[in-house]
């Protein structure tokens, strides 16, 4: 059974600090996605990484896919209160378009 483990589960930091969220598995994934969910809303896709070793940047967010395609990380530089939310990693389950999700990392950025 494929599993995605995220760490940490909860992070509370001050505005301006840097942070990294990890998503790990014992299984190889063809690709991984990161979603962000704000309170009262559904998750929204941030990025899809498809190549081992790939690094993608989205403003202050940097996403990395591990060389072996078993893990991924999300690094936020100079966090802002607007970054507050639940961050979820997800990977394909089978070949039908289904996803499996990590348990999520709740980020709170205090002004």
């Amino acid at each position, binding site marked *: 059974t494929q599993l995605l483990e995220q760490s940490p589960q909860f992070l509370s930091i001050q505005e301006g600090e840097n942070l990294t969220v990890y998503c790990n598995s014992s299984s190889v994934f063809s*690709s991984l*996605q990161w979603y962000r969910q704000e309170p009262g809303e*559904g998750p*929204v*896709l941030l990025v899809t990484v498809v190549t081992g070793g790939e690094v993608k940047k989205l403003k202050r967010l940097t996403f990395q896919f591990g060389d072996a395609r078993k893990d991924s990380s999300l690094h936020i530089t100079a966090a802002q209160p607007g970054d507050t939310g639940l961050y979820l990693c997800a990977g394909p389950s089978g*070949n*039908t378009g289904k*996803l499996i*999700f990590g348990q999520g990392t709740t980020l709170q950025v205090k002004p």
Partner: protein
Amino acid sequence: DVKVTQSSRYLVKRTGEKVFLECVQDMDHENMFWYRQDPGLGLRLIYFSYDVKMKEKGDIPEGYSVSREKKERFSLILESASTNQTSMYLCASSSRWTGILYEQYFGPGTRLTVT
């Protein structure tokens, strides 16, 4: 602007009631999904539909059924609601799998409380 809508944001039902959660997407997507979200557990797939009238059980289908009579609409049914079904329910849609991992578009969720 793509959109997935859910019939209710908040719902309170009594134990034993039959509950219908409706989801509509306007993107002509083949795939539709129902998840439940509980703190610390992420999103867990209840049911998946890859075409009209076609469905597949997810990881936690017990106590739920689904209906997809039209491409744009996917309904989740709780035949006899129980308190352990109190949760946030999220609907999502995506393009058909072609070997590429497509984005799933989510509705805003329905917070269901069963008393």
